[in-house]
Structures are given as C-alpha cells and as structure tokens.
C-alpha cells in the first residue's frame, strides 16, 4: 500500500514538473522572439526629442477644449491634462499639476513646483529653488539657483544651469551648456559644455620641456630613468605595450604608442600623449599637457590645469577636470565618463559630453590654486 501511494505521489510530482513546462511550450510554440528593438540608436537628447514627438502627437489627436476664463487650450489625456498657453509668467510659489505647453516665452518666480513636464517654445527662465519634473525648451533656458529637476532638461539654444541647481538625469542642448558652481547633473551633452569663468586667452600650450621621457623606450641597453624601468616593458604586438607596475614619470612624457600600465600612472606637466593610454589604477596628467589619444583608467583620473584632450576619457573611479582644461576635436565630439563623481572646475570647456555613473559636479577652482598659478 505504501509503495502504491509512493508511486502515485512520485508520478504526480513528476508529471506536474513537466506539465508546467509543457503548458509554457504550447504558449511559445510558433512564436518569434520580439525582444530586440532593431531600430534603437543612441541619441543623447533622446528624452527631449521623444517628449516633443509624443506631445505633438497628443495635440493632434486628443480632444480639445478652451477654458474661457484663462484663455488656455486644454487637452484631455486620460488621467492628466495638457494646458497650452501663448506665453506666461508664473509668480513665486505657484504649483502646477498638469503638463504645460507655452508657445511663447516663459518665466517663473522663486519656489514654484511643476509636477508634470513643461514644454516652452520660446525662451525660458526658471526661478530659484523651483522644482520641476522635466523641461524641453526650443529657445534659451536658464535654470535658476538651487532649482531641482527630477528628470531631464533639453534646450535648443543656450542653456545655463544655475548655482547649486540639480538635474537628476540628462542635460542636453543643441548649442551650449554653462554650468555654474555647485550645479549637478547625471550627464551633459552639447556642442559646447563649459563652466563659469571661461577665459580663452588661458589656452596657450607650448610644449618645450628641456627633458623628455620618450615611450616606448625600446633600446636593449636602456636604463631606468625618470621613474621608468625598461625591464617592466612588454610588447603586446600591434604597436601596443604593457608596463607591469606603477609608472610615475618625473620628466614630461612623449607617448608614441598605445600603452597599458598595470598600476597607477602619472606624468608631469607639458607631456604629449599621442596614443591611447590605459592604467589599471589611477591616471594623473600634468598641467598644460596635450592628450591626443584616449585615456582609460580602472581607478580615478585627473587632468591638471590647462590640459587639452582630443579623445575619450573613461574612468572606473572618480574624475577631476581642473581649471582651464579643454576637450576639443575636429568634426566629432569628445566624451568624458567616470563611474564615480566627475568634478569640473571653473574655466573648463568640453565640446561634447560629460557623464557620470553618479553625478557631474561643477566647482569653483580653489582660490589657493589660482593664486599659485598667478604667482
């Protein structure tokens, strides 16, 4: 009897085990996978573009009514509504719970709160300490001091992120973005991203160091010099070299081939890096250096004052772009990304993208450094 019960129980469990799978298979049978979006392309200003497109669609298709007292056009979109006005000025402290479309210029006073997206077809100025959901502007945009944006900000013309303002996601512009000290965002993309105190005459790079460490240094009888030990150098082929250990150079570097450092790397001021460089640890590039290749660091990365880079910067840790750093390249934009915090000092210009896994923060260059530089 016990054996019979055991057999029945076993068979039932065995059947159930495969019955669920069999049912699942019957649902899948004959179907094709639809997991991938084959049309996906990465657009830095995707959020702004996508919102504009959706909004245009809603305004074409949704039922419209006119609010006689305010002159607003109102579109009913299920649980939410879209208010459309010609131009507007919001007084301080005003709250808005609906999606707002302004067809002219718009500005609001201090401490307003926009719970839904805001679209402005003219120029826009957001008052200090205002809270926003997301903001798309076809003209210029000024995000006021201490404002908080829960998602993204996109402008067609000049965009300024005011002092201590925080944007939780992307900031994009088709013209330029200026970051004031204390402002933060997850990423910034524009033909020109710059911080306060921009001073073009500061960009004067003359590479005329008296002593240069040329890498790779392949002569058989080469001796250790300037912090570089030839015994630690290995060729990977393909004009790429691996240096096994930390490399802290004491003389300006002229890098002529792709280089991988299994450790930390630093080079003094007025170095010239013509090829790609990677360090498993941190990378520190001396002041007034020129970086023509890409830089990849497993740890932190720092570009000292007045450095000029033409490629990509990628750091697994934090990144600091010091006073006067320039990121420029012909035709294509440059990019600087760090998994940690990206700190950008004053008078930094990057033609392209600044992004972080945590946040990009603009800071004032320490007064001590500026005084030192003047001296």
């Amino acid at each position, binding site marked *: 009897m016990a054996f019979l019960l055991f057999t029945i129980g076993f068979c039932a469990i065995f059947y159930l*085990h*495969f019955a*669920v*799978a*069999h*049912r*699942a*298979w019957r*649902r*899948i*049978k*004959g*179907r*094709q*996978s639809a*997991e*991938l*979006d*084959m*049309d*996906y*392309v*990465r657009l830095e200003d995707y959020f702004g573009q996508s919102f504009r497109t959706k909004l245009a669609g809603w305004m074409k298709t949704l039922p419209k009514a006119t609010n006689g007292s305010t002159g607003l056009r109102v579109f009913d979109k299920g649980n939410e509504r879209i208010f459309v006005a010609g131009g507007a000025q919001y007084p301080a402290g005003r709250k808005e719970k609906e999606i707002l479309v302004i067809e002219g210029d718009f500005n609001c006073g201090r401490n307003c709160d926009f719970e839904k997206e805001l679209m402005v077809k003219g120029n826009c100025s957001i008052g200090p300490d205002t809270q926003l959901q997301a903001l798309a502007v076809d003209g210029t945009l000024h995000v006021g001091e201490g404002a908080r944006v829960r998602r993204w900000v996109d402008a067609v013309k000049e965009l300024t992120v005011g002092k201590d303002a925080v944007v939780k996601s992307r900031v994009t512009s088709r013209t330029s973005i200026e970051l004031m000290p204390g402002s933060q965002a997850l*990423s910034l993309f524009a033909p020109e991203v710059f911080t306060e105190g921009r001073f073009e005459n500061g960009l004067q790079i003359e590479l005329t160091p008296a002593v240069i460490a040329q890498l790779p240094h392949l002569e058989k009888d080469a001796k250790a010099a300037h912090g570089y030990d030839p015994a630690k150098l*290995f060729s*990977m*082929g*393909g*004009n*790429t070299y*691996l240096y*096994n250990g930390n490399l802290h150079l004491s003389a300006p570097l002229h890098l002529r081939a*792709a*280089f*991988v450092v299994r450790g930390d790397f630093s080079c003094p001021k007025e170095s010239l890096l013509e*090829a*790609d*460089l*990677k360090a498993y640890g941190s990378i520190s590039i001396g002041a007034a250096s020129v970086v023509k*290749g*890409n830089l*990849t660091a497993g740890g932190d990365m720092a570009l000292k004052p007045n450095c000029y880079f033409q*490629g*990509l910067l*990628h750091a*697994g840790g934090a990144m600091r772009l010091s006073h006067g750093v320039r990121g420029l390249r012909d035709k*294509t*934009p*440059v*990019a600087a*990304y760090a*998994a940690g915090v990206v700190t950008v000092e004053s008078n930094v210009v990057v033609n*392209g*993208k600044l*992004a972080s896994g945590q946040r990009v923060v603009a800071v004032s260059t320490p007064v001590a450094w500026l005084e030192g530089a003047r001296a």
Partner: protein
Amino acid sequence: MAVTFLIGIAYAVVGSATAVLLLYAIRHYLLGYTRLGIETPKDAMDLVGFHMPRVTVLIPMHNEERVAGDILQAIVDSDYDWEKLEVIPINDRSEDKTQEIIDGFALRYPFILPLHRTGGASGKPAALVEACKRATGEILVMFDADYVPGRAVIKMLVAPFADPEVGASMGRVVPHNIGDSLLSGLLSLERSAGYQGVQQSRFNLGFTAQFGGTVGAVRASALESVGGWNPQSLTEDTDLTFALLLNGWKTAYVNRAECYEEVPQTWSVRRRQLSRWVTGHTECLHNYWPDLMRSRFLTRWEKVDALFLLAMYWTAPMVVAGWMASLLLFFIPEAHQTPWLPVALAFLGYQLFSNQATFLEIGVASMLDGTRIRSLLLPLNLFNFFANTGAICNALRKFYWNRFWGSGGDGWYKTHRTRGTAVNGAGGNGSGFGGGAGPAAARSATGLYHARERRG
C-alpha cells in the same frame, strides 16, 4: 581480489567526476550570483558614438540567398558613418543567387566591396584570411550571414576599442526562432545563460570574454600581431580569443550589442554544430593550455578561468563515466559494505547543490531578460542536457580517435539555415528584396526587420 579492485576503480571514477563537477558547480554559482550582485564596472555604453574609427564589416557567405539581402540591408541601415565604413561580403563559392544579391547591393552602395572566392581552401576561417588582406579598417566587425544586427550594433561593438588593451569585442546573440521547435526554445535558454549570464559575469569579474566569431569585432593590428586567423581551426573564434589573451589582449563583452540569430531547429543540425564546437574547442585546449599556464600577462585567477573555459566539454564524458561507475557500485553487493550513510549524504548533497548549478545560470539570465514564460521550459532542458552529453561524448571520441591515428577530422560544416522562403520568383533571399535589388521599404519574410529608406 578483482572485485575489490573494480570497486576501487569505480570509487575513484565517481570521486574524481564528483570533484571536477563540484568545481564547475562552484564556478556556475559564483558566476550566477555575481551577475545578480555586481554592477557592470566597465560599461562603455556612454562612449557609444564617440569613438568612430574606420571599420570593415566582414560577412562570410556560402549559398546564403535566403538571408544575404537581410544582413546587407541591415548593415546599410546601421547608424555608423558611411565614410568610415567598408563592407566586404565574402561569397565563398556559392552556387545559388548569393553573388547576384551581393552585386546588386554593391552597385547601389559604393562602400560594399564584394569578394567572390572561386578557389583556395574552403570554410569560414580561410574566407576570413583572404578578406582580411583587403580590409582597410582599423577595426574588423564580423557577422554570419544569417544574423540581423540592429542599427546601433556596430557603434556599440566599436566603443570598447577606446581602451588600448581591448583586442576584440563580443556582442550578444538572441535567437529569434524560439517557437519553431522545442529544441530552438531550449537553445534560446542556453544562449541567454551563456551571454546575459556567463559572458557578462566573467567580464564583470575582470576575466576575458569569449570571442564568438560573429556579432564581434577585432582590432586589425591585434589580429595581425597574433598571426591572423587560424585557417586550420574549426573554431577560429575560440582560437583567436586565446591567441589574443596570450599576447595580453582582452576581449570586451557588450551585452547591449544584441543581434538576432537563427538557432538549430532539429537535432541532426544541432549535433553537427555541437560536434564542430567540441572539436575546435578541445583542439584549442591542447594547443594553448601549456602557454596559458606560463603566460606572464595573466593573473592566477585568469589562468584558472581560462582552463575552466577550455576544458568545459570534458565534463560530459566525466558525467557519463560517473554514471557508469555508480551503476557498477549499485549492482556489486560487496560495494554496499561501505558506510552508506556518509556516502549517501555526500551524493545527496552533490545532487542538491551541484546538479542545479547550470540551471541556476539559466534562471538568472531569464530573470534579467524578463522572459518568465520561457524560463518555465527549464525542466524540459533535462532532455537537452542528455542529448548534449551524448553528442559531446561522441564528438570527443571522434576527436581523440582521429588524433591518435593522425587522421583528419570532419572539416568545416556550415550550419543549415531555415529562414526565409523564395519570393518574387527571384530565387528568394528571404527578405523580399528580389535578388537584393528590390524596394528598400520591403519587409523581411521573418518580420524581424524593417528596411528603411536610404539616408540622404
């Protein structure tokens, strides 16, 4: 005396099989759990589109009229800058309308430079060797003819090369024909675990990903530095992965660079595919393991990981040997004098812990992909497991037999395609393009891919 000896041998076989499988089980668990726990540390997605070197796309083709139009149209529609793009479709002695389709595209798009092979060694590695001599790209991107890449895939595959240590990059393949047969459904689970699970996890842990030969890219200078493709290898991709690794180059994995593929729908096709993989992979094990162990470029853990990867097909005969030895022990009464409780507990523990390990990886990948219904197929994967084990054992038997007697193997075998049907009376390329020269707005027979108007 003989019986005691037999029992001793049987215990040794069961013990060693259990030990090896336990090590693999630990690896499976480690990879599964880290995939859930560790964020991608070196994600190059934020650099996509900012690193745009000159690229050559290589597409080996042999009798691919059903699929040639789809892949070429997909490449034409990619968002990579045409000025930096060169496409070399390699027509390797096709007897169908492949050449016609390729030439149709070449007429319309000047960056498509066909290579029609009429002689020389056959097979994908030999075709790649010849094409690489013509390629001018700094980066070589490879697709098999039955693959359908999305618009951004080339940019994504190229982005990791901003890192000078990266010699190759690998994207993810996603089967589209999941519902065509139970086998293709089960293989989709396997692919999911292999890419979303294992490849990503190994990359996150700092190990080199495995270059798969398709939906992948390789730095031309790195390829040249390791002597190019190995035309003798049946798995030129695995061969290249380890040749690069031995010279210090890493292979990056880009999970977001996804591409549809067609997985085998019948067991005969699957068995031949698996047989080629097993042979090529085991050949790499024999060719590379001594150098790997001595390599000055690799850390101790990288060596261990590489060895696990190369020896993975050996686990199948070990499982079978373990089963046979267990049966022997079960039917020999003298063997039952062993203290049964600790042995039973050990085996029970092994069953509970180790045998579930690979299934855990599949579960993790299904969870991350959000494919809940498909993950319910998991119990049926047991049949796949038995069939795989048999096919692998058979392939290894053949491999070692040929190796022992010094005879040649089966040679290159092209996986059978089933996608597409003849359309427009043009012989059919599966895309509805009518020999590759049809309207750009045509839709593929699979419904996977929408061709777009040519960019201005």
